């Protein structure tokens, strides 16, 4: 499943209960727009780490990386690239 689709589905089903996925645009500000609060971030980050088998450093978890689906996808893609490159090299 495409990264943004998986995240959009998770957010709609678990964080923004009752909000249809279609309302979450790629550039919708999730955090600064008040759609995901501080408690919601716990679930979102746990989902991202489990779904994509990545780990976030504390410094990486910030509003600049996780505010929109586009930003989240970019961060996850980067981490997957690094992870896969490491696996290929080992």
């Amino acid at each position: 499943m495409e990264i943004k689709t998986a995240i959009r589905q998770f957010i709609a089903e678990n964080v923004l209960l009752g909000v249809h996925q279609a309302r979450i645009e790629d550039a919708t500000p999730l955090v600064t727009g008040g759609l995901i609060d501080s408690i919601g971030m716990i679930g979102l980050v746990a989902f991202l780490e489990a779904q994509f088998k990545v780990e976030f450093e504390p410094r990486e978890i910030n509003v600049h990386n996780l505010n929109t689906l586009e930003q989240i996808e970019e961060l996850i893609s980067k981490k997957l690239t690094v992870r896969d490159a490491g696996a290929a090299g080992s």
Partner: protein
Amino acid sequence: MNVRIASAAYAVPPDGETVQAVLERERVRVQTTLAPLSPQARQKAAEGLGLSRVRVCGGKEPYDLVLEAASTAIADAGITGKDIDLIVDYSTFPGENSQYLSIAHKLSAELGAETSLNLSFKAGGCGALHLAIKTAMGWMSTDENIKTALLVTGDTAPAGNRSLLPVTVQGDAGSAVILRRQGTEGPLLLGVEAMTLGHLHNAIALIKTNGHLEIKVDAPCIENEVMPIYYLNLYRLVQKVLAASSLNLNDVDHFIYSNISQRDRDGFRRMVGLPEGGLPVTPMADYGHTFASDLVINYVHLRREGRIRPGQLLLFASAGIGFTWGVTLARA
């Protein structure tokens, strides 16, 4: 290493002021701080604080409160000043009139702890208790002569700086905790973890303006940078500490958390999965937020009320200036 919380005590000044009076007096400062926020965020800033009054140092200095708390903690631990090998002062705002490099030095003399090693640091704000515990445990683990440590903090808001909206309103207090290695009384420390994200150091900063200290709150930074990750980082530290002892959230009997505001305590309660009313009532309405003394105050009250029974698991958690998060786990 077997280290126990042998005793804890706090002292607050008798004088008080209503939060409403503080916010009225500091109206310009509050408005200036909140101005960059959205109208909704500005309105929310003073809602759900759960703080009615704050205690304020009148004729007393934070040092006086620390001395009072330390004396009580020493008596409660059944020791004397001479037994203290290490004093760690982790005060954030020890007072503009503080005459000392560190109040630990004067404290060692007045308590009779003449040979104690005296340390002081300014870091962590309300998360500083964990840093102090970790520091003391570090010294204990490397120096067999250090068996008893006294951890103190005494804080008063700089004049005209009680409001830390959109976060809290500060009251004055002093507190003391005694840790003993190979002790037999008090909760056994199982673990302590702390983390700092230095890029958020300006979220709450202490600066000097026209010769006077001022606490500068960067409200947009708090709202947009700190709060989105505030509970997440606390939650991850909680999980880390619990996992290191093969425990989980359901094993915790008492969560001891800061008195920053009622809405913050509600956030923490949701974070750990407790139902509404699941956190104990604290004296926050009468004391305000007393920085790192909050945890000591809340722990002392739990003990006074007889709610802590042998074998129960205590989890202390707080976060503050730095920006710093900390969690300490102990078994009563």
